[in-house]
């Protein structure tokens, strides 16, 4: 199986720093792409493979923290390792709260950087996996009609067919028929599995009121 090579993006306006980081990371076996500004990185599409960004905080134009916000606004989940010439505590706290992997003051040791990068990549990998799973689950659930989706929700809430019928204002028989459809489409019979699928898809579990 072809293991996708982890990709690391380096974003720093200083040429020496860029060069030295790229050299180190490449030597460690990573694929590296460098950017001179946050804007340039923003224009680059999100990678398919697990990736992380080594991002300088202070840059002319869009700064590192602003980039973090911009990415979040676009729904991207880039794993960021911040590096900075400033040891600014409020800045660091803000970055971490917003989901950064780490915040390294310059000059950092190569060990510290590589460790943070490894963590970031692991997180990225996990996320990507989770994302893949979610997407798959969602894709599966998308097969259901809206009516079937409603039944599904009530099923994962733990309701019996009769109760679902009462809740939805349909006959129990209809519910039974719909349940059959769900099972066929999703390939799942047990409610427990449905629950898990719902969780994977990110569907809230307590969707209905019990009567």
């Amino acid at each position: 199986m072809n293991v996708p090579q982890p990709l690391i993006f380096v974003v720093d306006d200083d040429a020496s720093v860029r060069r030295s980081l790229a050299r180190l990371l490449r030597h460690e076996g990573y694929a590296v792409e460098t950017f001179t500004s946050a804007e340039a990185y923003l224009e680059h599409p999100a990678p398919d493979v697990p990736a992380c960004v080594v991002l300088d905080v202070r840059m002319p134009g869009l700064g590192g923290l602003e980039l973090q916000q911009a990415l979040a606004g676009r729904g991207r989940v880039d794993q960021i390792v911040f590096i900075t010439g400033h040891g600014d505590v409020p800045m660091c706290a803000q970055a971490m709260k917003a989901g950064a992997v780490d915040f390294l003051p310059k000059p950092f040791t190569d060990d510290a950087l590589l460790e943070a990068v490894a963590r970031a990549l692991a997180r990225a990998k996990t996320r990507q996996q989770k994302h893949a799973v979610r997407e798959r689950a969602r894709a599966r659930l998308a097969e259901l009609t809206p009516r079937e989706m409603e039944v599904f929700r009530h099923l994962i809430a733990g309701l019996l067919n009769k109760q679902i019928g009462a809740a939805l204002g349909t006959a129990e028989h209809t519910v039974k028929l719909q349940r059959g459809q769900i099972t066929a489409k999703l390939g799942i019979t047990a409610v427990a599995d449905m629950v898990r699928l719902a969780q994977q898809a990110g569907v809230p579990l307590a969707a209905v009121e019990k009567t």
Partner: protein
Amino acid sequence: MVEFMEGFRDELARQWPAPVAIRMEDISPDAPADATFDAWLEQKYKNRRIDLIAALEGPGTKLGVAFRNKVRPAAPMVLAGISAGRYEVFRSLPNVTGVTIDQNVRGLLEAAARLCPGTKHLFFVSGGIKTTEEERRLWRLDAEQFAAAEGMEFVDLTGPVTFAKLLEQVRAMPPHSLLLRRDTIVGGLTRASDRTKAMQQISEAANGPLFTIADAYAEDGSNGTGTVDYRQMGKEVGAQTVAVFKAGDASAVPPVPSAAFRLSFDWRQLQRWGLDEKRLPPGSDLRFRQPGLWEAHRGTMIGITAALAVQTALIIALLLQRRWRIRAESALRQQREQLSHTLRLATMTQMASSLAHELNQPLTAMVTNAGTARRMIARGGGDPAELGEILQDIAADGQRAGEVIRGIRGMVRRGETALEIVTVAELIVGVRRMIEPEARARGCLIGEEIAPGLPTLEVNTVQMQQVLLNLLMNAFDAMESAGSAARRVVIRAEAEGDATVCVSVRDFGPGLPPEGAEKLFEQYYTTKVHGLGMGLVIVRSIIEAHGGSLGAANADGGGARFYFRLPAVRRVAT
């Protein structure tokens, strides 16, 4: 004798209309009477006209009388400087008059007696090889008579004794003794200084105060010295001579007493013997009084001191003025440098964080590169080519760090006031290098519009850099809240005619406040949350110190434009 002659001549010139030729024959007291000398004198004046013979004091009188007898018996004679008693001896001679002075011994003794009340013994010593027995006898007579009148024992120590013996004798004087000395003693001493020294020894040894009759004042340890003011005497003799000329016969002119006798007292000796200076006769001199220089010459002293004081005051005033001016100038300069330094520091503080960041970049790269190289080597020897590259990068970054530090040092150094010739371009390049980190940190772009062929400036480079830095920082501050697109600063430089260069810093911020630019220049007025607000005041003072002017206006298209004009200088073509 010089003084006598001066007095004599002056008086003659004053009183007698026709010029008078004066021949003087000075007989040294030390020279013994000499038959050869007499014959020579005779020969010299045998055929000369002599209208008058003036003889001075004892020896002179003796010689004069003998001379007249031999050479010109008909010439009138004035006998001067002898006592009245002595004069009586010659009174019977024809055609003679005199200027007598007989307070010598008497006057001094009277003063001495007053100073030393209760004196019981008067010791007398006189003589020396020059005094004749006759002289000695006469002086002694005066002293003897005085002692008798005062009820004092009179002791004559004069005689052929050795100096040592004399010292013994004066040492052995009983209490309440006085020692009177006439002229020099101690035979054999021909030099005056030797005689003075000898007298000092006597004075020190004597068991009582010493008083002296002398021809001239000498510091010989005497409490009081009677001397003759020979100038005065010369005058008196001159006057008497004129009287004789007028009268035709000296006998028709009565002898006159001289007023030339002077008493001088030595304060130090008086102190030594505890003698009261208040008992001194009026009109006498008191010498060597310790604080007394002041008292004695108080009038003169005050005058001199006042004059000096005025002069000194003047001088001091001038010096102070000059020093004040220099100090004021240097204080002004110092103040400006202080402000400049403060500005630098303020700017520094603002830039410190970005400069630290600036320093961190090369450091980070160096550390990272070193780490990479380590790893390469640890994994079993790295590629030399790659390692070489890494080391090169490390070295380059080290240099870069050094330059940043140099830049910081340059900013903090104080005290440059020298002017140098620079081009506008050079100035701006230097400033840009310094402000680059801050500009990047703030996300501001700096553009340049420098006209070609600008005349050069003669300025203090550091101060002008301060000006530009300050204007740029203000521009950055003004654009703090503007979007990235608006964060632009343009430095513009153009010539206005041959003699002026105009440099401006333009931003795209909100522009000048409605109150106008002038408020901005008011010291400490600031619209910034941080920052000193002092900047523009210093900027203006620097520009004006360079002979330029500073102004501000709103720019077309938004933002403010701060501009300054400076006089230009043409570089001398080499």
